[in-house]
């Protein structure tokens, strides 16, 4: 079978190239708007599927499991816990970070879905799945996604 092994070409050449297509994505902003209004008042707004009862925080406009639109908004508690986490040592292009960063999936009490957010104020080796965390709010909340600056351990 050895004679069938692909022989490499003697001469090849690289050619630089790029794809550059610009987009203008349209999003539904109703739920996002309600969520951001909540953040301004330091409240966490979620949405509840009337069919299966699942609560999504941040809120989503549809439940894929039930193929139903969601209209009901509910407030969930700002107390939360770490569902899972990872410590990040390098940037996406491979540069080492001066300090490792932690990103976690956070579940608010009363919600069924999770929020992706940084966890600050704890060393990677001390983070535990299930540990309680709380929102570290921006000094002045403005109704923006960065109002939740990160989560910190409850001491």
């Amino acid at each position, binding site marked *: 079978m050895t004679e069938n092994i692909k022989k490499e070409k003697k001469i090849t050449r690289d050619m630089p190239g790029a794809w550059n297509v610009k987009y203008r*994505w*349209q999003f539904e902003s109703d739920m996002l708007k309600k969520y951001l209004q909540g953040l301004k008042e330091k409240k966490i707004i979620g949405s509840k599927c009337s069919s299966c009862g699942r609560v999504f925080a941040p809120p989503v406009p549809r439940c894929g499991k039930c*193929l139903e639109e969601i209209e009901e908004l509910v407030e969930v508690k700002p107390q939360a816990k770490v569902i899972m986490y990872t410590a990040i040592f390098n940037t996406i292009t491979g540069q080492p970070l001066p300090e490792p960063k932690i990103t976690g999936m956070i579940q608010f009490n009363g919600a069924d879905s999770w929020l992706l957010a940084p966890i600050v104020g704890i060393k990677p080796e001390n983070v535990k799945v299930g540990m309680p965390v709380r929102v570290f709010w921006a000094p002045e909340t403005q109704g923006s996604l960065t109002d939740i600056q990160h989560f910190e351990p409850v001491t």
Partner: protein
Amino acid sequence: MEKVAIVGYGMSPQADIIKDSREGMIFSTVKQTLEAHDIKRDDISTWVMCSNDFYDGRTISNVFTVDPSGAYGKDETKVEQDGMHALLYAWMRVASGNHEMAIVVAHSKGSEFEPHVALSAQLDPTYDRQFGFLNDIAAAALQARAYLAKNKLDEDVLAEVAFKNLSNAEKNPLASVRKKGLSVKDIAQSPELFSPLREMTSYPATDGCCVAVLANEKKARKITKKPVWITGFGHCQEAYYLGERDLTRIRSAKDAARRAYKMAGIKDPAKDIDVFEVSEHFAHQELMLYEALGLSEPGKAAKLLNKGKTELKGAIPVNPSGGALAACALGTVGLVRAVECAMQIRGEAGKHQVKKAKTALAHGQCGMAAQNNIVAILKGFRL
């Protein structure tokens, strides 16, 4: 092999902009399809989506459309060519006996990306991208020029094709994108893109979503009194390089049609088929398709058009919906054609209904200058 029918369909309007997210547009079209045809989501076991990562601006873009399409917890996949390819794969899944029911969901939002920039990424980087002139319209323009020159036709014939289709589209509320009441002269004087193609003889990239539900015979008879059977399918690719193709004809459409006719037992397409819906992204392609589908002798397509045979009330109606020249959400076009055929056969096409449409042909294409062609034959209720 199981017999397969279209038992439900749905379409969003084809509009310059649908004011909704991609997910919202898909959700409402799928939901409306299931409700309108009294189909339970749990009876469907496989989802075949059609869109394109480039059009969507997301990698493996179907991961985002699982939820709104109803595919949560189901068997789901995506094709990147045309909605007609998605229909072919869904048909195979049911015909093989592996699934009783399948759903096809095709969509794109032309308002959210730059279609000709995205499509130019199809080009081979070594030779075809060097001058920066070639794109999907330029490739089609070369094909148009080759066809017109070979058959000694005037450029006005392109405006005549567009006039027929745009007039039909005025009767189709789901394809109301173009300005109404245009004359052949208006079309012939519309802005030039790549000669001989102009704005009104090239497709408009629109937003849109199209859905079809397929079922095997047992399920189909339970769901509807009007199943539309898919009795033939043919598919063919040709060379990528324009320079290796005879651009005066669409060979792969001819071969695709021949295969579909053989499977469906069509002897004389002009007589055996009552209505044709073809994906003419550019006006000359409709003429080339008359020839490829066997509706006219080579080089005689313009005569067929000029005699009015392919008009809505003609003997061989082609594109009563208005075709791709009227409205074109890229990637949905072939499926829209198949759904239009189903509407015609079921007598649900409204103002653009063709009388006594029992057998229909739907055509889809993709690639530069219609490199890849696919043909389906659809037939009315009694098989």
